[in-house]
């Protein structure tokens, strides 16, 4: 399907229109259960995201990068991945983390400033959130090289924003992926802004997907607010990667509905009109209409979904807030495999300054 949409001709893969009608020749005709699951994960992501914002406003969470508007790309991508695949995320990937089974309490911990959330549970192949923009891309390529070396039939996914495509690591990573024909899927969440700098200031290229052509592999621009398009494109690119077909760049064309982070005020650099236009393309509302059309959505289903999401979020918040901050030992423990004597002395010195000794 990917090769039917040529980024050089401005073609974009879209399956659902803004009223949630699927193009008959493109509809992947996913099983009913999967469709409902995709919807539920998107709804859960939105609730968990909204909650994080509220916690930040209440002083219960640190600076937070909201995912509002990105649910279709995050969930559609992660739902197409297998448990054996690897994920090298960026810092706006809540829906992908939840879909891959990462505990929400741990995700909250990171943004709350608690190291406890930084250990990916065993069995999940998720690298930590990458804040230095684009730096996760060569890492994902190296993981792809290792997968090839070890002959593992897996794919390695990296996500990043449109701003990251201007970074050297984007070029170095994608170039190496092309040369080594690695099993990578690169997903650019082209959400039109890198903090305040608009997409047009990142590249004069009409699409970001077309950059893949210069690296010698396929690139496709898709509607990032259409979960079916995301799922279908990701599934195909992942299958290509796993079967030795090499890397793919997917540009998910979307919009950052929220501020860059809670420290940002997007009204300084973009108009209300623009934001309102994108509200009409809301990924969840659009998919709900599709489900309704297929008889898979009802008020009762919605109530259940929201109740389950609220329960999950409340439990995660309670768990995250109940966990004490890292101990002095803990913040020293992971600097080296074996702590050098100097560091042990510094730890002892720090502990000696704490009331009542070690805390």
């Amino acid at each position: 399907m990917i090769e039917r949409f040529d980024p050089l001709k401005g073609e974009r893969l879209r399956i659902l229109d803004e009223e949630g009608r699927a193009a008959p020749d493109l509809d992947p005709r996913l099983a009913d259960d999967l469709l409902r699951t995709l919807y539920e994960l998107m709804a859960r992501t939105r609730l968990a995201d909204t909650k994080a914002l509220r916690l930040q406003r209440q002083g219960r969470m640190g600076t937070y990068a909201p995912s509002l508007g990105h649910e279709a790309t995050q969930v559609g991508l992660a739902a197409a991945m297998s448990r054996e695949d690897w994920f090298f995320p960026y810092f706006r990937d809540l829906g992908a983390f939840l879909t891959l089974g990462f505990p929400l309490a741990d995700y909250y911990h990171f943004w709350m400033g608690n190291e406890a959330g930084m250990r990916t549970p065993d069995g999940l192949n998720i690298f930590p959130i990458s804040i230095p923009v684009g730096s996760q891309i060569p890492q994902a390529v190296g993981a792809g090289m290792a997968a090839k070396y070890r002959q593992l039939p897996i794919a390695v996914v990296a996500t990043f924003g449109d701003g990251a495509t201007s970074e050297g690591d984007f070029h170095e990573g994608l170039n190496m992926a092309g040369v080594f024909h690695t099993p990578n899927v690169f997903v650019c969440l082209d959400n039109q802004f890198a903090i305040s700098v608009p997409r047009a200031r990142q590249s004069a290229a009409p699409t970001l997907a077309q950059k893949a052509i210069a690296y010698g592999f396929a690139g496709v621009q898709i509607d990032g607010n259409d979960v079916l398009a995301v799922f279908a494109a990701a599934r195909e690119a992942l299958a290509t990667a796993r079967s030795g077909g090499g890397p793919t760049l997917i540009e998910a064309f979307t919009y950052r509905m929220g501020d860059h982070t809670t420290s940002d005020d997007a009204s300084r650099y973009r108009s209300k009109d623009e934001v309102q236009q994108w509200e009409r393309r809301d990924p969840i509302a659009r998919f709900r209409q599709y489900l309704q059309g297929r008889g898979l959505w009802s008020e009762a289903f919605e109530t259940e979904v929201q109740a389950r999401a609220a329960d999950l979020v409340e439990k995660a918040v309670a768990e995250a807030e109940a966990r004490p901050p890292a101990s002095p030992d803990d913040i020293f423990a992971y600097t080296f495999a074996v702590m050098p004597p100097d560091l042990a002395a510094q730890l002892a010195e720090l502990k000696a300054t704490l009331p009542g000794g070690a805390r």
Partner: protein
Amino acid sequence: MIMTMVQAINRALAGELERDDRVVVFGEDVGRDGGVFRATEGLFDRFGPARVMDTPLAESGAVGAAIGMAALGLRPVPEIQFMGFIYPAFNQIVSHVARIRNRTRGRFTAPITIRTPYGAGVKALEHHSESTEALFCHLPGLTVVVPSTPYEAKGLLAASIRSDDPVIFLEPTRLYRAEKQEVPEEPYEVPLRQAAVVREGRDLTVVAWGAMIPVARETAAAAEAQGVSVEIVDLRTLSPMDRSTILASVRKTGRAIVLHEAPKTCGLGAEIAATIGESALLSLKAPVARVTAPDITVPLAKREDLYYPNPDRVLRAVRRLMEY
């Protein structure tokens, strides 16, 4: 077998590739060409292109890739062709290599050994002669290693590749072919984090590493003729630093010179002098002296002799301390 340092490094790489199939070697020109200094000569033919890889000319890409390889269980040994070209990879080293263990509470680690030739003294082009080891010593989580002989180079490199921590392995280009030495055929380790007293003395301690060790030895021989007995501590691992060996030596001799070819200000000599001041002040018969490069850009080939310390300059410091 008698060999140079660059041959010893080659043998260490071959030995580790042989004994552990998780080890992979890669970088610019390391494959078919065998490296610009021939450090990887023959490895491509012997171990194949899947384990000895020529990469695109992309330092950040190579080091970043090493992190991902490590996540999937490999022990990557990337080569940066010269230390002067490591800076594009600095973000990967600072933000990820040094701290991935901490960032994941030990779930992911970086058993990566980044090899790079460094230092002045071979009349190379601009950007080929710097000694910026202090930049890396400042980063928690990194181990910084510098060998000074062929024997040490082979054993320290084997230990670095086997280490579960990331290692910046700095190879003094000036010593690559400067001396030949008997080096065992079989693999062995020289332990990390341990300095060595490479010459015993009574009156004064010189703390040095890498290409400054031969300078220290020459100084010591000249001082001996003048009746001054110099002890030399070869740091070998610059960070984490073996402070106890330094302090034991200074407590014995009562005088210390820190000798390095990097610029003076915020160089590692400052850290060593501070360590001695903190812990051995009352043993000192004279202030700690630093003999270093000046705080200038490394001159081009014709005047690089003015830049790095030579035995005459060290000897002047020896006399100054003895007369203090």
